[in-house]
Protein backbone atom coordinates (compact mmCIF):
# COMPACT_ATOMS: atom_id res chain seq x y z
CA UNK A 1 0.00 0.00 0.00
CA UNK A 2 1.25 3.43 -0.86
CA UNK A 3 0.17 6.61 0.86
CA UNK A 4 0.92 10.14 -0.32
CA UNK A 5 0.73 12.95 2.22
CA UNK A 6 0.51 16.55 1.04
CA UNK A 7 1.88 19.08 3.47
CA UNK A 8 2.28 22.83 3.44
CA UNK A 9 4.69 24.99 5.33
CA UNK A 10 2.93 27.88 7.01
CA UNK A 11 3.89 30.72 9.36
CA UNK A 12 3.70 29.69 13.03
CA UNK A 13 0.25 30.40 14.43
CA UNK A 14 1.75 31.76 17.61
CA UNK A 15 3.52 34.34 15.52
CA UNK A 16 0.55 34.97 13.26
CA UNK A 17 -0.09 38.37 14.76
CA UNK A 18 3.16 39.43 13.13
CA UNK A 19 2.14 38.23 9.67
CA UNK A 20 1.83 41.00 7.16
CA UNK A 21 0.05 41.08 3.85
CA UNK A 22 1.93 42.58 0.96
CA UNK A 23 -0.31 45.45 -0.18
CA UNK A 24 0.96 45.23 -3.77
CA UNK A 25 0.07 41.67 -4.74
CA UNK A 26 -2.00 40.66 -1.70
CA UNK A 27 0.27 37.74 -0.86
CA UNK A 28 1.54 36.97 2.62
CA UNK A 29 4.93 38.40 3.58
CA UNK A 30 6.90 35.43 4.86
CA UNK A 31 10.26 36.92 5.77
CA UNK A 32 11.41 36.76 9.37
CA UNK A 33 8.66 34.46 10.62
CA UNK A 34 9.18 30.99 11.99
CA UNK A 35 7.65 28.39 9.73
CA UNK A 36 5.99 25.19 10.78
CA UNK A 37 4.15 22.33 9.14
CA UNK A 38 0.50 23.29 8.82
CA UNK A 39 -0.94 21.73 12.01
CA UNK A 40 -3.67 19.75 10.20
CA UNK A 41 -1.01 18.36 7.86
CA UNK A 42 0.82 17.01 10.91
CA UNK A 43 -2.36 15.06 11.65
CA UNK A 44 -2.31 13.85 8.04
CA UNK A 45 1.29 12.68 8.49
CA UNK A 46 0.51 10.99 11.77
CA UNK A 47 -2.45 9.14 10.27
CA UNK A 48 -0.33 7.94 7.36
CA UNK A 49 2.33 6.70 9.77
CA UNK A 50 -0.27 4.87 11.84
CA UNK A 51 -1.60 3.16 8.72
CA UNK A 52 1.96 2.31 7.79
CA UNK A 53 2.58 0.72 11.19
CA UNK A 54 -0.57 -1.40 10.89
CA UNK A 55 -0.54 -2.30 7.19
CA UNK A 56 3.07 -2.18 6.05
CA UNK A 57 2.47 0.79 3.79
CA UNK A 58 5.05 3.17 2.39
CA UNK A 59 4.54 6.87 2.91
CA UNK A 60 5.63 9.58 0.49
CA UNK A 61 5.35 13.17 1.56
CA UNK A 62 5.20 16.03 -0.93
CA UNK A 63 5.15 19.75 -0.46
CA UNK A 64 4.96 22.61 -2.92
CA UNK A 65 6.50 25.83 -1.77
CA UNK A 66 9.63 27.96 -1.70
CA UNK A 67 13.00 26.22 -1.14
CA UNK A 68 12.73 26.58 2.65
CA UNK A 69 9.70 24.27 2.59
CA UNK A 70 12.43 21.65 2.68
CA UNK A 71 12.47 22.15 6.47
CA UNK A 72 8.87 20.96 6.66
CA UNK A 73 9.73 17.90 4.59
CA UNK A 74 12.71 17.18 6.81
CA UNK A 75 10.45 17.25 9.84
CA UNK A 76 8.13 14.80 8.05
CA UNK A 77 11.13 12.53 7.43
CA UNK A 78 12.12 12.73 11.09
CA UNK A 79 8.58 11.71 12.06
CA UNK A 80 9.10 8.59 9.96
CA UNK A 81 7.88 9.02 6.36
CA UNK A 82 9.85 6.98 3.83
CA UNK A 83 10.33 9.58 1.17
CA UNK A 84 9.93 13.33 0.79
CA UNK A 85 9.83 15.42 -2.38
CA UNK A 86 9.95 19.18 -2.69
CA UNK A 87 7.99 20.69 -5.56
CA UNK A 88 9.39 24.09 -6.15
CA UNK A 89 10.00 26.47 -9.01
CA UNK A 90 9.84 30.23 -9.34
CA UNK A 91 7.23 29.73 -12.06
CA UNK A 92 4.95 28.00 -9.52
CA UNK A 93 4.92 31.12 -7.35
CA UNK A 94 1.60 32.93 -7.11
CA UNK A 95 -0.40 29.77 -7.79
CA UNK A 96 -3.90 29.87 -6.36
CA UNK A 97 -5.70 26.79 -5.06
CA UNK A 98 -6.63 25.67 -8.58
CA UNK A 99 -3.08 25.87 -9.93
CA UNK A 100 -1.58 24.45 -6.74
CA UNK A 101 -3.85 21.42 -6.76
CA UNK A 102 -3.13 20.97 -10.46
CA UNK A 103 0.65 21.00 -9.90
CA UNK A 104 0.39 18.65 -6.92
CA UNK A 105 -1.87 16.25 -8.84
CA UNK A 106 0.63 16.18 -11.71
CA UNK A 107 3.45 15.46 -9.26
CA UNK A 108 1.40 12.63 -7.76
CA UNK A 109 0.89 11.17 -11.24
CA UNK A 110 4.67 11.14 -11.62
CA UNK A 111 4.98 9.15 -8.41
CA UNK A 112 3.12 6.25 -9.99
CA UNK A 113 0.56 4.05 -8.25
CA UNK A 114 -0.89 5.09 -4.97
CA UNK A 115 -3.77 3.95 -2.76
CA UNK A 116 -4.49 6.87 -0.53
CA UNK A 117 -3.75 10.58 -0.46
CA UNK A 118 -4.03 12.38 2.88
CA UNK A 119 -4.03 16.13 3.41
CA UNK A 120 -4.98 18.41 6.28
CA UNK A 121 -8.51 19.78 6.24
CA UNK A 122 -7.17 23.25 5.46
CA UNK A 123 -4.06 25.38 5.83
CA UNK A 124 -4.07 27.83 8.71
CA UNK A 125 -2.68 30.66 6.60
CA UNK A 126 -5.10 30.66 3.67
CA UNK A 127 -7.92 28.66 5.29
CA UNK A 128 -9.45 27.79 1.91
CA UNK A 129 -9.74 23.99 2.35
CA UNK A 130 -9.66 23.74 -1.44
CA UNK A 131 -6.32 22.18 -2.33
CA UNK A 132 -7.10 18.69 -1.04
CA UNK A 133 -10.41 18.43 -2.90
CA UNK A 134 -8.79 20.07 -5.94
CA UNK A 135 -6.16 17.34 -6.14
CA UNK A 136 -8.86 14.65 -6.03
CA UNK A 137 -10.76 16.38 -8.83
CA UNK A 138 -7.67 16.73 -11.01
CA UNK A 139 -6.90 13.06 -10.46
CA UNK A 140 -10.53 11.96 -10.87
CA UNK A 141 -10.63 9.98 -7.62
CA UNK A 142 -13.19 10.02 -4.79
CA UNK A 143 -12.60 12.26 -1.82
CA UNK A 144 -13.75 12.66 1.76
CA UNK A 145 -13.14 15.90 3.62
CA UNK A 146 -13.10 16.69 7.37
CA UNK A 147 -12.32 13.12 8.33
CA UNK A 148 -11.91 12.46 12.05
CA UNK A 149 -11.65 8.68 12.05
CA UNK A 150 -10.83 6.03 9.45
CA UNK A 151 -10.78 2.31 9.00
CA UNK A 152 -9.24 0.62 5.97
CA UNK A 153 -10.50 -2.79 4.90
CA UNK A 154 -10.48 -4.76 1.64
CA UNK A 155 -9.64 -1.84 -0.60
CA UNK A 156 -12.28 0.33 1.02
CA UNK A 157 -11.95 3.19 3.41
CA UNK A 158 -14.64 3.82 5.99
CA UNK A 159 -14.47 7.32 7.39
CA UNK A 160 -16.24 9.44 9.93
CA UNK A 161 -16.66 13.00 8.68
CA UNK A 162 -17.08 15.83 11.17
CA UNK A 163 -19.65 18.19 9.70
CA UNK A 164 -21.02 21.33 11.23
CA UNK A 165 -23.83 19.82 13.27
CA UNK A 166 -23.44 16.08 12.87
CA UNK A 167 -21.16 13.24 11.84
CA UNK A 168 -21.37 11.26 8.69
CA UNK A 169 -20.02 7.75 8.19
CA UNK A 170 -19.08 7.10 4.58
CA UNK A 171 -17.37 4.29 2.74
CA UNK A 172 -15.48 4.76 -0.51
CA UNK A 173 -13.20 2.73 -2.68
CA UNK A 174 -9.46 3.24 -2.85
CA UNK A 175 -7.61 4.95 -4.40
CA UNK A 176 -9.04 8.02 -2.77
CA UNK A 177 -8.17 11.28 -1.07
CA UNK A 178 -9.08 12.31 2.45
CA UNK A 179 -8.54 15.52 4.36
CA UNK A 180 -8.30 15.20 8.13
CA UNK A 181 -9.19 17.24 11.21
CA UNK A 182 -7.27 17.70 14.45
CA UNK A 183 -9.41 15.14 16.27
CA UNK A 184 -8.18 12.23 14.20
CA UNK A 185 -4.99 11.75 16.22
CA UNK A 186 -2.20 13.30 18.27
CA UNK A 187 0.85 13.87 16.05
CA UNK A 188 4.05 12.28 17.35
CA UNK A 189 7.32 13.96 18.16
CA UNK A 190 10.28 12.76 16.15
CA UNK A 191 12.97 10.90 18.09
CA UNK A 192 16.42 12.48 18.12
CA UNK A 193 17.77 9.53 16.21
CA UNK A 194 15.33 10.13 13.34
CA UNK A 195 15.86 13.86 13.55
CA UNK A 196 19.60 13.48 13.10
CA UNK A 197 19.13 10.91 10.34
CA UNK A 198 16.66 13.13 8.49
CA UNK A 199 19.14 15.97 8.54
CA UNK A 200 21.45 13.99 6.29
CA UNK A 201 18.87 12.86 3.70
CA UNK A 202 18.97 14.65 0.38
CA UNK A 203 15.47 15.75 -0.55
CA UNK A 204 14.76 15.55 -4.30
CA UNK A 205 13.56 18.74 -5.96
CA UNK A 206 10.96 18.55 -8.68
CA UNK A 207 10.86 21.77 -10.65
CA UNK A 208 9.03 22.58 -13.84
CA UNK A 209 11.88 21.38 -15.99
CA UNK A 210 11.02 18.00 -14.52
CA UNK A 211 7.22 18.28 -14.35
CA UNK A 212 6.99 20.15 -17.64
CA UNK A 213 3.60 21.75 -17.06
CA UNK A 214 2.12 24.34 -19.44
CA UNK A 215 2.82 27.90 -18.33
CA UNK A 216 -0.84 28.91 -18.59
CA UNK A 217 -1.85 26.31 -16.00
CA UNK A 218 0.62 27.22 -13.28
CA UNK A 219 1.68 30.23 -11.24
CA UNK A 220 -0.15 33.54 -11.49
CA UNK A 221 -1.06 32.94 -15.16
CA UNK A 222 -2.67 29.62 -14.33
CA UNK A 223 -4.67 31.00 -11.42
CA UNK A 224 -8.25 32.01 -12.10
CA UNK A 225 -8.58 33.48 -8.59
CA UNK A 226 -7.94 37.18 -8.22
CA UNK A 227 -7.57 38.46 -4.70
CA UNK A 228 -9.04 41.94 -4.70
CA UNK A 229 -8.33 42.89 -1.14
CA UNK A 230 -7.12 41.15 2.03
CA UNK A 231 -8.13 42.72 5.31
CA UNK A 232 -8.89 42.03 8.95
CA UNK A 233 -12.65 41.70 9.40
CA UNK A 234 -14.43 44.02 11.82
CA UNK A 235 -15.47 42.79 15.25
CA UNK A 236 -18.37 40.33 15.30
CA UNK A 237 -21.82 41.61 16.19
CA UNK A 238 -22.36 42.19 19.89
CA UNK A 239 -24.51 39.64 21.70
CA UNK A 240 -27.95 40.63 22.88
CA UNK A 241 -28.58 40.90 26.59
CA UNK A 242 -32.05 39.79 27.59
CA UNK A 243 -33.59 41.96 30.33
CA UNK A 244 -36.42 41.37 32.75
CA UNK A 245 -37.30 39.04 35.61
CA UNK A 246 -36.65 35.30 35.44
CA UNK A 247 -39.95 34.46 33.75
CA UNK A 248 -39.64 37.19 31.16
CA UNK A 249 -36.09 36.13 30.39
CA UNK A 250 -37.07 32.49 30.03
CA UNK A 251 -40.02 33.32 27.77
CA UNK A 252 -37.85 35.49 25.59
CA UNK A 253 -35.18 32.78 25.28
CA UNK A 254 -37.78 30.15 24.32
CA UNK A 255 -39.23 32.53 21.76
CA UNK A 256 -35.78 33.13 20.25
CA UNK A 257 -35.01 29.40 20.12
CA UNK A 258 -38.25 28.77 18.25
CA UNK A 259 -37.81 31.72 15.94
CA UNK A 260 -34.32 30.64 14.96
CA UNK A 261 -35.26 26.98 14.80
CA UNK A 262 -32.24 26.12 16.97
CA UNK A 263 -33.53 22.75 18.13
CA UNK A 264 -34.21 21.34 14.69
CA UNK A 265 -31.81 18.45 15.19
CA UNK A 266 -33.76 17.19 18.14
CA UNK A 267 -37.03 16.89 16.24
Amino acid at each position, binding site marked *: MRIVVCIKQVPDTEELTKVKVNPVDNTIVREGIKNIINPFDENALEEALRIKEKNAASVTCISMGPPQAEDALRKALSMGVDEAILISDTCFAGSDTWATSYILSEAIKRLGDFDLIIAGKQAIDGDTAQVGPGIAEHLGIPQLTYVRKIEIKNGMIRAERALEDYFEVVEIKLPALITVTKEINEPR*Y*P*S*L*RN*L*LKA*KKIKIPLWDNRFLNLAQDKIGLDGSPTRVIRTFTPGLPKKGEIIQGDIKEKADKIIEEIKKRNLLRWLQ
Partner: protein
Amino acid sequence: MDFDLTEEQKMILELVDEVSEKEIEPLADEVAEKGEFPRGNIERLASLDLFGITIPKKYAGLEMDYLTWALVAERISRACATTGLIFGANLLCTFPLLNFGSEEQKSTFLPPLAKGTSLGAFALTEPEAGSDAGNVQTSAKKDADGYILNGNKIFITNGEVADIYIIIANLDRKRGARGLAAFILKKGTTGFSFGQHFRKMGLEALPNVELILKDCPVPENNLIGGEKKGFKIAMETFAAGRIGVGIGALGIAEAAFKKARDYSKERVQFGRTISSFQAVQHILADMATKIEASRQFLYKAAWLLDKGMPFEKYASMGKLYASETAMWVTTKAVQILGGYGYMKDYPVERYMREAKLFEIIEGTSEIQRGIIANLILKET
Protein backbone atom coordinates in the same frame (compact mmCIF):
# COMPACT_ATOMS: atom_id res chain seq x y z
CA MET B 1 36.79 29.86 21.21
CA ASP B 2 33.45 29.18 19.60
CA PHE B 3 30.11 29.92 21.23
CA ASP B 4 28.00 28.77 18.28
CA LEU B 5 25.74 25.79 18.56
CA THR B 6 25.92 23.23 15.77
CA GLU B 7 22.97 22.77 13.42
CA GLU B 8 22.32 19.43 15.08
CA GLN B 9 22.27 20.95 18.54
CA LYS B 10 19.86 23.65 17.40
CA MET B 11 17.51 21.06 15.94
CA ILE B 12 17.62 18.96 19.09
CA LEU B 13 17.02 21.95 21.34
CA GLU B 14 14.09 23.13 19.28
CA LEU B 15 12.46 19.75 19.79
CA VAL B 16 13.34 19.61 23.50
CA ASP B 17 12.01 23.15 23.99
CA GLU B 18 8.74 22.22 22.36
CA VAL B 19 8.30 19.11 24.47
CA SER B 20 9.40 20.88 27.68
CA GLU B 21 7.06 23.79 27.16
CA LYS B 22 4.07 21.85 25.90
CA GLU B 23 4.24 18.70 27.99
CA ILE B 24 6.60 18.87 30.94
CA GLU B 25 6.28 22.38 32.33
CA PRO B 26 2.46 22.42 32.44
CA LEU B 27 2.53 19.33 34.69
CA ALA B 28 5.30 20.47 37.05
CA ASP B 29 2.98 21.83 39.77
CA GLU B 30 0.86 18.72 39.66
CA VAL B 31 3.91 16.45 39.79
CA ALA B 32 5.14 18.20 42.94
CA GLU B 33 1.66 18.35 44.45
CA LYS B 34 0.95 14.65 43.97
CA GLY B 35 4.46 13.55 44.83
CA GLU B 36 4.26 10.67 42.39
CA PHE B 37 7.12 9.59 40.16
CA PRO B 38 6.52 11.37 36.81
CA ARG B 39 6.60 8.24 34.71
CA GLY B 40 4.93 9.90 31.72
CA ASN B 41 7.72 12.50 31.52
CA ILE B 42 10.39 9.83 31.69
CA GLU B 43 8.70 7.82 28.95
CA ARG B 44 8.53 10.93 26.82
CA LEU B 45 12.26 11.62 27.30
CA ALA B 46 12.94 8.00 26.38
CA SER B 47 10.78 8.18 23.25
CA LEU B 48 12.87 11.15 22.11
CA ASP B 49 16.12 9.13 22.67
CA LEU B 50 17.34 11.68 25.23
CA PHE B 51 18.74 9.09 27.62
CA GLY B 52 21.21 8.01 24.96
CA ILE B 53 22.80 11.38 24.19
CA THR B 54 26.26 10.63 25.57
CA ILE B 55 26.24 6.91 24.85
CA PRO B 56 28.07 5.53 21.79
CA LYS B 57 26.04 4.32 18.83
CA LYS B 58 27.19 0.75 19.27
CA TYR B 59 25.42 0.71 22.64
CA ALA B 60 22.22 2.15 21.16
CA GLY B 61 23.06 5.76 21.98
CA LEU B 62 23.38 8.91 19.88
CA GLU B 63 27.08 9.40 20.54
CA MET B 64 26.87 13.10 21.18
CA ASP B 65 28.79 15.18 23.68
CA TYR B 66 28.23 16.26 27.29
CA LEU B 67 27.67 19.85 26.21
CA THR B 68 24.63 18.70 24.23
CA TRP B 69 23.52 16.68 27.24
CA ALA B 70 23.89 19.79 29.42
CA LEU B 71 21.91 21.96 27.00
CA VAL B 72 19.11 19.42 26.99
CA ALA B 73 19.16 18.90 30.78
CA GLU B 74 19.00 22.67 31.30
CA ARG B 75 15.75 22.82 29.36
CA ILE B 76 14.22 19.85 31.12
CA SER B 77 15.18 21.26 34.55
CA ARG B 78 13.75 24.65 33.66
CA ALA B 79 10.43 22.96 32.95
CA CYS B 80 10.49 20.52 35.90
CA ALA B 81 13.41 20.18 38.33
CA THR B 82 12.23 16.75 39.45
CA THR B 83 12.36 15.38 35.92
CA GLY B 84 15.75 17.04 35.45
CA LEU B 85 17.14 15.29 38.53
CA ILE B 86 15.85 11.89 37.46
CA PHE B 87 17.49 12.49 34.09
CA GLY B 88 20.70 13.62 35.80
CA ALA B 89 20.88 10.71 38.26
CA ASN B 90 20.76 8.39 35.29
CA LEU B 91 24.02 9.91 34.06
CA LEU B 92 25.68 8.90 37.36
CA CYS B 93 25.02 5.33 36.34
CA THR B 94 26.03 5.56 32.68
CA PHE B 95 29.18 7.61 33.30
CA PRO B 96 31.11 5.03 35.35
CA LEU B 97 29.97 2.23 33.03
CA LEU B 98 31.20 4.13 30.00
CA ASN B 99 34.50 5.23 31.51
CA PHE B 100 35.47 2.28 33.67
CA GLY B 101 33.26 -0.60 32.55
CA SER B 102 34.43 -3.67 30.63
CA GLU B 103 33.25 -4.30 27.09
CA GLU B 104 30.86 -6.92 28.43
CA GLN B 105 29.44 -4.57 31.06
CA LYS B 106 28.94 -1.85 28.48
CA SER B 107 27.22 -4.03 25.95
CA THR B 108 24.97 -5.56 28.62
CA PHE B 109 23.93 -2.51 30.61
CA LEU B 110 24.28 0.54 28.37
CA PRO B 111 21.71 -0.24 25.65
CA PRO B 112 18.68 -0.39 27.99
CA LEU B 113 19.92 2.75 29.76
CA ALA B 114 20.40 4.54 26.43
CA LYS B 115 16.91 3.62 25.29
CA GLY B 116 15.42 4.59 28.62
CA THR B 117 13.86 1.16 29.05
CA SER B 118 15.96 0.88 32.22
CA LEU B 119 16.74 3.69 34.63
CA GLY B 120 19.99 3.97 36.54
CA ALA B 121 21.04 5.08 40.04
CA PHE B 122 24.28 5.64 41.90
CA ALA B 123 24.59 4.80 45.58
CA LEU B 124 27.38 5.94 47.85
CA THR B 125 25.77 7.85 50.73
CA GLU B 126 25.22 6.05 54.02
CA PRO B 127 24.33 7.23 57.51
CA GLU B 128 28.03 7.51 58.35
CA ALA B 129 29.30 8.46 54.91
CA GLY B 130 28.05 11.73 53.43
CA SER B 131 30.65 14.38 52.73
CA ASP B 132 33.12 11.88 54.10
CA ALA B 133 32.65 9.60 51.11
CA GLY B 134 35.59 7.40 52.00
CA ASN B 135 33.87 6.25 55.17
CA VAL B 136 31.59 3.78 53.41
CA GLN B 137 30.59 0.94 55.77
CA THR B 138 28.81 -1.28 53.25
CA SER B 139 31.01 -4.31 52.90
CA ALA B 140 31.92 -6.48 49.94
CA LYS B 141 33.32 -9.93 50.65
CA LYS B 142 34.90 -12.09 48.00
CA ASP B 143 33.46 -15.57 47.63
CA ALA B 144 33.66 -18.36 45.04
CA ASP B 145 31.19 -16.80 42.54
CA GLY B 146 31.94 -13.15 43.06
CA TYR B 147 31.12 -10.83 45.95
CA ILE B 148 28.62 -10.63 48.80
CA LEU B 149 27.39 -7.15 49.72
CA ASN B 150 26.03 -6.08 53.11
CA GLY B 151 24.97 -2.61 54.22
CA ASN B 152 22.52 0.28 53.87
CA LYS B 153 22.49 3.22 51.48
CA ILE B 154 20.33 6.28 52.11
CA PHE B 155 18.77 9.15 50.12
CA ILE B 156 19.39 7.33 46.82
CA THR B 157 17.87 9.17 43.87
CA ASN B 158 15.88 6.91 41.51
CA GLY B 159 15.88 4.27 44.23
CA GLU B 160 13.29 1.56 43.59
CA VAL B 161 12.32 2.95 40.14
CA ALA B 162 15.82 2.28 38.80
CA ASP B 163 16.75 -1.11 37.37
CA ILE B 164 20.53 -0.76 37.44
CA TYR B 165 22.46 0.48 40.51
CA ILE B 166 26.10 1.39 40.92
CA ILE B 167 26.96 0.47 44.52
CA ILE B 168 30.08 1.69 46.27
CA ALA B 169 31.16 -0.83 48.89
CA ASN B 170 34.23 -1.52 50.96
CA LEU B 171 36.40 -4.56 50.27
CA ASP B 172 38.86 -3.73 52.98
CA ARG B 173 37.81 -1.50 55.85
CA LYS B 174 41.37 -1.15 57.11
CA ARG B 175 42.33 0.62 53.91
CA GLY B 176 39.52 3.20 54.18
CA ALA B 177 38.83 5.03 50.92
CA ARG B 178 41.41 2.87 49.14
CA GLY B 179 39.42 -0.24 50.02
CA LEU B 180 36.37 0.91 48.03
CA ALA B 181 35.04 -0.86 44.94
CA ALA B 182 32.15 -0.13 42.54
CA PHE B 183 29.62 -2.84 41.68
CA ILE B 184 26.72 -3.12 39.27
CA LEU B 185 23.64 -4.38 41.07
CA LYS B 186 20.41 -5.28 39.33
CA LYS B 187 17.01 -4.72 40.86
CA GLY B 188 15.55 -8.07 41.87
CA THR B 189 18.85 -9.56 43.08
CA THR B 190 18.31 -11.71 46.19
CA GLY B 191 18.98 -9.79 49.36
CA PHE B 192 18.49 -6.42 47.66
CA SER B 193 15.44 -4.53 48.95
CA PHE B 194 14.16 -1.02 49.50
CA GLY B 195 13.55 0.55 52.87
CA GLN B 196 12.53 4.05 53.77
CA HIS B 197 11.18 6.51 51.21
CA PHE B 198 12.51 9.80 52.51
CA ARG B 199 10.12 12.74 52.86
CA LYS B 200 11.62 16.01 51.73
CA MET B 201 11.38 19.80 51.84
CA GLY B 202 10.68 19.86 48.11
CA LEU B 203 10.97 17.69 44.99
CA GLU B 204 8.29 15.47 46.49
CA ALA B 205 8.05 13.35 43.35
CA LEU B 206 11.77 12.57 43.20
CA PRO B 207 12.37 9.07 44.56
CA ASN B 208 14.94 9.11 47.38
CA VAL B 209 15.07 5.72 48.90
CA GLU B 210 17.01 3.58 51.31
CA LEU B 211 18.70 0.55 49.74
CA ILE B 212 19.09 -2.49 51.95
CA LEU B 213 21.75 -5.04 50.99
CA LYS B 214 21.60 -8.27 52.95
CA ASP B 215 23.99 -11.00 51.84
CA CYS B 216 23.46 -9.75 48.36
CA PRO B 217 25.42 -11.74 45.75
CA VAL B 218 27.08 -9.88 42.87
CA PRO B 219 28.78 -11.84 40.09
CA GLU B 220 32.48 -11.24 39.61
CA ASN B 221 31.77 -9.71 36.19
CA ASN B 222 29.81 -6.90 37.82
CA LEU B 223 32.81 -5.39 39.57
CA ILE B 224 33.65 -2.16 37.69
CA GLY B 225 37.25 -1.31 36.90
CA GLY B 226 38.85 -3.81 39.29
CA GLU B 227 39.17 -3.94 43.08
CA LYS B 228 40.24 -0.77 44.89
CA LYS B 229 39.08 1.43 42.05
CA GLY B 230 35.86 2.42 43.85
CA PHE B 231 36.98 5.75 45.29
CA LYS B 232 38.47 6.95 42.04
CA ILE B 233 35.33 5.91 40.14
CA ALA B 234 33.10 7.65 42.67
CA MET B 235 35.13 10.85 42.61
CA GLU B 236 35.27 11.06 38.82
CA THR B 237 31.58 10.27 38.53
CA PHE B 238 30.75 12.98 41.06
CA ALA B 239 32.97 15.44 39.20
CA ALA B 240 31.02 14.86 35.97
CA GLY B 241 27.78 14.68 37.92
CA ARG B 242 28.43 18.16 39.30
CA ILE B 243 27.93 19.54 35.82
CA GLY B 244 24.53 17.88 35.82
CA VAL B 245 23.63 19.13 39.29
CA GLY B 246 24.78 22.65 38.39
CA ILE B 247 22.67 22.50 35.25
CA GLY B 248 19.65 21.46 37.32
CA ALA B 249 20.16 24.47 39.59
CA LEU B 250 20.61 26.70 36.55
CA GLY B 251 17.29 25.50 35.14
CA ILE B 252 15.45 26.38 38.36
CA ALA B 253 17.12 29.79 38.50
CA GLU B 254 16.06 30.49 34.92
CA ALA B 255 12.48 29.48 35.62
CA ALA B 256 12.33 31.67 38.75
CA PHE B 257 13.91 34.61 36.97
CA LYS B 258 11.40 34.44 34.16
CA LYS B 259 8.46 34.36 36.56
CA ALA B 260 9.85 37.31 38.54
CA ARG B 261 10.61 39.38 35.45
CA ASP B 262 7.21 38.77 33.86
CA TYR B 263 5.39 39.44 37.11
CA SER B 264 7.27 42.69 37.71
CA LYS B 265 6.10 43.99 34.35
CA GLU B 266 2.44 43.29 35.18
CA ARG B 267 2.12 44.12 38.86
CA VAL B 268 1.07 47.72 39.45
CA GLN B 269 1.61 49.46 42.78
CA PHE B 270 1.71 53.20 43.42
CA GLY B 271 0.26 53.61 39.95
CA ARG B 272 3.19 52.03 38.11
CA THR B 273 4.53 48.60 37.35
CA ILE B 274 6.93 47.40 40.01
CA SER B 275 9.53 46.81 37.26
CA SER B 276 9.83 50.59 37.07
CA PHE B 277 11.30 50.73 40.58
CA GLN B 278 15.06 50.75 40.54
CA ALA B 279 15.17 48.51 43.61
CA VAL B 280 13.37 45.80 41.64
CA GLN B 281 15.33 46.42 38.45
CA HIS B 282 18.62 45.90 40.27
CA ILE B 283 17.47 42.56 41.64
CA LEU B 284 16.46 41.48 38.14
CA ALA B 285 19.81 42.65 36.75
CA ASP B 286 21.71 40.68 39.40
CA MET B 287 19.57 37.62 38.74
CA ALA B 288 20.26 37.71 35.01
CA THR B 289 23.98 38.32 35.56
CA LYS B 290 24.44 35.47 38.02
CA ILE B 291 22.43 33.12 35.81
CA GLU B 292 24.55 33.94 32.78
CA ALA B 293 27.76 33.46 34.79
CA SER B 294 26.52 30.07 36.04
CA ARG B 295 25.67 29.03 32.53
CA GLN B 296 29.10 29.94 31.17
CA PHE B 297 30.84 28.06 33.99
CA LEU B 298 28.86 24.91 33.33
CA TYR B 299 29.08 25.00 29.54
CA LYS B 300 32.82 25.43 29.88
CA ALA B 301 33.08 22.48 32.26
CA ALA B 302 31.11 20.31 29.81
CA TRP B 303 33.20 21.53 26.92
CA LEU B 304 36.43 20.64 28.76
CA LEU B 305 35.04 17.22 29.62
CA ASP B 306 34.24 16.66 25.94
CA LYS B 307 37.75 17.69 24.97
CA GLY B 308 39.22 15.22 27.46
CA MET B 309 40.84 18.05 29.40
CA PRO B 310 40.82 18.56 33.20
CA PHE B 311 37.32 19.83 33.96
CA GLU B 312 37.00 19.16 37.68
CA LYS B 313 37.76 22.69 38.83
CA TYR B 314 35.16 24.21 36.51
CA ALA B 315 32.62 21.55 37.38
CA SER B 316 33.01 22.38 41.08
CA MET B 317 32.97 26.12 40.45
CA GLY B 318 29.94 25.78 38.20
CA LYS B 319 28.07 23.56 40.65
CA LEU B 320 28.89 25.85 43.56
CA TYR B 321 28.04 29.04 41.74
CA ALA B 322 24.90 27.76 40.02
CA SER B 323 23.44 26.21 43.17
CA GLU B 324 24.07 29.33 45.27
CA THR B 325 22.69 31.41 42.40
CA ALA B 326 19.57 29.24 42.27
CA MET B 327 19.03 29.70 46.01
CA TRP B 328 19.54 33.44 45.77
CA VAL B 329 17.46 33.91 42.63
CA THR B 330 14.53 31.84 43.89
CA THR B 331 14.53 33.66 47.25
CA LYS B 332 14.54 37.00 45.45
CA ALA B 333 11.84 35.80 43.06
CA VAL B 334 9.59 35.15 46.06
CA GLN B 335 10.47 38.68 47.23
CA ILE B 336 9.52 40.23 43.90
CA LEU B 337 6.18 38.44 43.91
CA GLY B 338 5.60 39.63 47.48
CA GLY B 339 2.76 37.90 49.33
CA TYR B 340 1.78 36.11 46.15
CA GLY B 341 5.25 34.66 45.95
CA TYR B 342 4.72 33.04 49.34
CA MET B 343 1.51 31.40 48.18
CA LYS B 344 1.29 27.93 46.68
CA ASP B 345 -0.66 29.39 43.74
CA TYR B 346 2.61 30.56 42.20
CA PRO B 347 5.52 28.21 41.56
CA VAL B 348 8.26 30.46 43.00
CA GLU B 349 7.93 29.14 46.56
CA ARG B 350 8.34 25.66 45.12
CA TYR B 351 11.42 26.75 43.17
CA MET B 352 12.89 28.07 46.42
CA ARG B 353 12.37 24.76 48.19
CA GLU B 354 13.74 22.88 45.21
CA ALA B 355 16.82 25.09 44.86
CA LYS B 356 18.04 24.31 48.38
CA LEU B 357 18.84 20.73 47.48
CA PHE B 358 21.44 21.76 44.95
CA GLU B 359 23.68 23.30 47.62
CA ILE B 360 23.78 19.90 49.32
CA ILE B 361 23.98 17.02 46.85
CA GLU B 362 27.01 15.87 44.92
CA GLY B 363 29.20 17.57 47.53
CA THR B 364 27.92 20.44 49.68
CA SER B 365 28.96 24.04 48.98
CA GLU B 366 31.55 23.69 51.72
CA ILE B 367 32.97 20.59 50.09
CA GLN B 368 33.05 22.36 46.68
CA ARG B 369 35.03 25.25 48.16
CA GLY B 370 37.40 22.70 49.65
CA ILE B 371 37.90 21.02 46.26
CA ILE B 372 38.42 24.34 44.47
CA ALA B 373 40.86 25.55 47.12
CA ASN B 374 42.79 22.31 46.88
CA LEU B 375 43.07 22.61 43.11
CA ILE B 376 44.01 26.29 42.97
CA LEU B 377 46.60 25.96 45.69
CA LYS B 378 48.33 23.30 43.62
CA GLU B 379 48.47 25.65 40.65
CA THR B 380 51.52 27.83 40.30
